[in-house]
């Protein structure tokens, strides 16, 4: 328990930083209520027309559904790959583990724009053979997102495996359990929480991925962030403000539930 509390000067500076961090999130609320067709502060009258536009304009709904589909497929794919890989690392501790893990983590540390041009190269090469799997296809985007999310999933799995007691696995092994039984009946139930977290994080990362998506889509695979990007670049559509408010509210609710659950588990 820290006995040395921050003094008044620290508190004042920290309050300014906190304000700075929250400011842009609060600023979208008044903008989303403007009656104007352009980005502006509402003067007097408020309107929900931009929230209505989100429901009425089919483009938003289509891109939301596409983002969910891509997120689910890429999250499932990267969770399974990361799980197998981490199980291999933990159960057998092969030589060169550090180098192999380092290789898997590359897409996380390489600047995203370099990963983007790399995946652009990959998908345009694939497009030569296949029309439904390559540049500007939803399967292509899902695969590219898997490349980007798999390092994060792997890190989470390795962290939760590192907290597991090796002796339960040794006991199972000594009693004659096969590799498959050890993995599915001993280890996986014990890292359930880590697996779920990895799947969720992969989904969220895919859901909001924009840097790579910009490079590998043009007119067909318009994910939600891609559609927002288009609305932000040309002339700014206040529907984005309405959408942002909704996304912020969801985030705050999820974080509140999570911290409540964590408190319950801790207590």
């Amino acid at each position, binding site marked *: 328990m*820290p006995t040395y509390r921050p003094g008044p000067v620290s508190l004042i500076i920290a309050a300014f930083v*906190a304000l700075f961090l929250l*400011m842009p999130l609060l600023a979208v609320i008044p903008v989303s209520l403007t009656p104007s067709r352009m980005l502006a502060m509402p003067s007097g009258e408020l309107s929900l027309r931009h929230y209505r536009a989100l429901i009425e304009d089919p483009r938003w709904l289509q891109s939301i559904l596409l983002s969910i589909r891509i997120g689910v497929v890429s999250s499932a794919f990267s969770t399974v790959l990361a799980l197998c890989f981490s199980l291999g690392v933990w159960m057998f501790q092969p030589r060169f583990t550090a180098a192999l893990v380092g290789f898997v983590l590359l*897409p996380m*540390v390489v600047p995203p*724009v370099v990963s983007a041009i*790399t995946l652009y190269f990959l998908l345009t090469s694939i497009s030569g053979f296949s029309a439904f799997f390559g540049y500007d296809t939803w399967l292509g985007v899902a695969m590219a997102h898997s490349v980007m999310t798999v390092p994060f999933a792997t890190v989470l799995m390795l962290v939760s495996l590192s907290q597991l007691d090796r002796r339960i696995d040794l006991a199972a092994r000594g009693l004659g359990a096969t590799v498959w039984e050890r993995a599915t009946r001993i280890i996986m139930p014990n890292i359930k929480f880590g697996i779920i977290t990895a799947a969720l994080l992969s989904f969220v990362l895919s859901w909001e991925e924009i840097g790579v998506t910009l490079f590998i889509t043009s007119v067909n695979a318009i994910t939600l962030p891609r559609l927002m*990007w288009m609305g932000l670049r040309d002339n700014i559509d206040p529907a984005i403000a309405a959408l*942002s408010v909704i996304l912020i509210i969801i985030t705050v609710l999820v974080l509140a539930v999570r911290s409540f659950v964590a408190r319950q588990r801790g207590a």
Partner: protein
Amino acid sequence: MRSYLSDRMGAALLMAPLLLFLVLAYAWPFLGVVKWSFTLPTPGLGQYEALLTDDLVQSVFIRTLRIAAIVTVVSVAAAYAITVVWVRGTPAQRLIAEFCILVPFWISVLTRAFGWVALLSNRGLINTWLQAIGFISEPLALVRNEFGVIVGMTHFLIPFAVFPLASAMRSLDDRVLLAARGLGSSRMRTFWTVFVPMTRSGIIGAAMIVFVFSLGFFVTPAILGGGRSVMIAELIYLRIFQSPDWGLGAAISVVLVLFVGALMALLFRYVRPKQLI
């Protein structure tokens, strides 16, 4: 002997799918990009020569380094201030600090950049209010320039700087601070001569993370810079999609990877990876 062999087989079978996937979907195409940088539009080192002589490319490199340096200093300092409260505040202060750090962290980069547009643009919150109270007559140019880019990037990167700092502050032994105070050192002096030096590994880690991230930043500069304050990542995008010059885009990418790789190697000489989480 049998079990030793089957162990190795098991490991290989479990680890192979991911390794194979990343070799095919990441390592191989990256080599393709490297190949582009040497072969497009004509084989040779032409693109790397252009990197050294092209004024536009050089000014973008210099701007990127300058923005990254400013963003690093500002966001590490700001993160330090709020991390002190998050780690060492009263329970209520800690809860508020955690909320202010984690909510922006989980919100997508696009939403956050848009929030800054809503605040800083000509018809945005700040200009509207300042004009309403008669403080200014013409809107201030707060966005579509370097200022907007720096503000947006600092906002994005503060939470990333918080985690290594928090890890360093948590592992600090309170008794050292009590000893300094007990020996008659003032609060200020204890902070600057004991607390800050003892969290040095966190500061180095945070600064490196922020600096490396800002070098490859794309979305925030593209939106808040409005095409006027182009950074290296946006230049790569423009070279690939607007003035099709894939060779130069690829060459810039290769240089960026080498530069970031060198920085990471330097980082891990001072900080162990575990200290960054």
